[in-house]
């Protein structure tokens, strides 16, 4: 098995120091690692498992069960478009097609150059002002196709 990079190992160690003694704190630990690195390195599984007295399979099971956790590096920019009912009623289906065309990748995928990933999200709690989305961690509501395009262009230039 490959070993973690120094940066990865440090992130895991820091998170373990914070959470290893807290009851049931596997999720906060995984969040802390992912918040630092953007993903949870596969190679961290054995370290986390032994610190929490769990089997590797248990830790792997938890990481893969939750939609939020990921084991691969994220693309440079992440666009999450709400696909849930209230946004459907406000036009998220056609907005999604527009985003797919602009970025050149399908919902749930990333672009070949890994500059962009386009993810579905099921409700951001902005249901009165949809379509709603999250772009690189910032929330946006009442998104028109024009607004979407200009926000993407702005990121492209940055």
């Amino acid at each position, binding site marked *: 098995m490959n070993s973690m990079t120094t940066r990865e190992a440090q992130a895991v160690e820091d998170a373990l120091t914070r959470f290893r003694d807290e*009851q*049931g*704190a*596997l*999720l*906060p630990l*995984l*969040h802390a690692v992912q918040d630092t690195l953007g993903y949870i390195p596969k190679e961290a599984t054995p370290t986390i498992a032994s610190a*929490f007295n769990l089997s590797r399979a*248990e830790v792997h*099971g*938890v990481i893969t*069960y*939750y*939609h*939020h*956790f990921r084991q691969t590096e994220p693309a440079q920019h992440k666009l999450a478009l709400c696909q*849930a*009912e*209230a*946004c*459907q*009623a*406000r036009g998220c289906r056609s907005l999604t097609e527009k985003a797919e065309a602009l970025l050149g990748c399908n919902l749930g995928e990333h672009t070949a150059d890994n500059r962009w990933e386009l993810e579905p*999200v*099921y*409700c*951001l*709690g*902005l*249901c*009165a*002002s*949809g379509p*709603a989305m999250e772009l690189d*961690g910032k*929330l*946006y*509501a*009442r998104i028109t196709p024009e607004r979407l395009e200009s926000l993407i262009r702005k990121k492209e230039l940055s």
Partner: protein
Amino acid sequence: MSVKIYVPRDSAALAVGADEVAEAIVQQAASRGQSIELVRNGSRGLLWLEPMVEVTVGGERVAYGPVTPESVASLFDAGFLAGKPHALALGPTEALPYLKNQERLTFARVGITDPLSLEDYQAHEGFAGLRAALALTPADIVQQVLDSGLRGRGGAGFPAGIKWKTVMQASADQKYIVVNADEGDSGTFADRMVMEGDPYMLIEGMAIAGLAVGATHGYVYIRSEYPDAVSVMEEAVRRATAAGFLGKNVLGSGKAFDITIRKAAGAYVCGEETALLESLEGKRGIVRAKPPLPALVGLFGKPTVINNVLTLAAVPFILCRGPKAYADYGMGRSRGTLPFQLAGNLRHGGLVEKAFGVTARQLIEDFGGGTESGRPVRAVQIGGPLGAYLPDALLDTPMDYEALAAKGGVLGHGGIVVFDDTVDMAEQARYAMEFCAIESCGKCTPCRIGSTRGMEVIERMKATPAEAVPQGKLLRDLCSTMLNGSLCAMGGMTPYPVLSALDHFPEDFNLAAETHKAA
């Protein structure tokens, strides 16, 4: 003297540029030599007007909205600091019919105060419920909650007082209060608005619950899609602890109560209470079989009160004003008020707290102002992704747990999602099955496999009209298997949106109204 200006910090305001507006206001004020005091309040809930800026003029708050950063200079030019007219002027906030016609008990403070100010909170009855509870025995607190008629706001409507009583009577070395802040239902955002707009109310409700049942520790499980709610709650817990409202010695009573904020990780089913407990324990969020009830064997195997945010947020009012003041609102067995969330294709979407008994039509027309598209309403989904779609003919049903159930609907968490006549109801039904397939915890076959089969069947009905009748029958069989063979409401209630779409809108499934009745 400096003028007080309010710019909301609620996510729904931030997502349409509230921070940029606040920044522009500060800049304009500075360049004009105007002294202002900027308060970042919660949202008043008139979400189509966000960012809605308020200015205090002669002791009264006057509103402007929706404000853009570009319009700020013209607001200053027009004299909005003195409440002068402007194209965006809305008049005195309290006089806006949308607000004036509500019955805000839980949302009384939201949008009015600075969410993190303990002074503001206490100046508006904050912690009065906790102080009252500290003078009562646990049994008396539970009795007040029972007398208020408060039922769980997370969906099932189970009486809160009965749950609390069970936990109170259980003997254990440790008990827990768990707040279900997973709010996964599309069309709902009231939990989020409470956490971002009045976090101490939830903290107070939790502390009262702790006193009532003898729990010294509470957890708030907040969905990861709500980063602002997480950070406001974390800061509120820190401040409340530092000020002695939480900690080893709550308000000098000798009683302890601490709160931990936990972030979820994007699994809808973790809103189901037992899956939530598994997740809090650091496991996969798989639903547990009941019994045992969480009230007896809950978090880490200990007796646990698990309640929705709105359930616990209603408690401080009940303890402060008395159970009767709360129970005086409502109809039948649905006592008190419900913060309804108007969403989807509406001109005036937002938060409307009303006593139970208001009709969907009143909410949609009188408050919501009809569809934003200007087209007729065709279908309304009430109660989230597991709730039924109602046609126009059923919109006069009073919003009450029993009355809605009698019409095949569910009230759930009070979310109301409106669709106009461009909606394809077969597609909505297909989506309901797809959502179930994506979010199923995988424990039961009807839910895990049935949902995928359901999607395929609906796709076939749409693609091949000649197949619609036999496939429609198959869909009904499938739904009845899911209804009867699922451990929790994920698989057990996904048939609600599907069957209601099929019953009320058969033409969208290539079925004639008569054929479908015969089928």
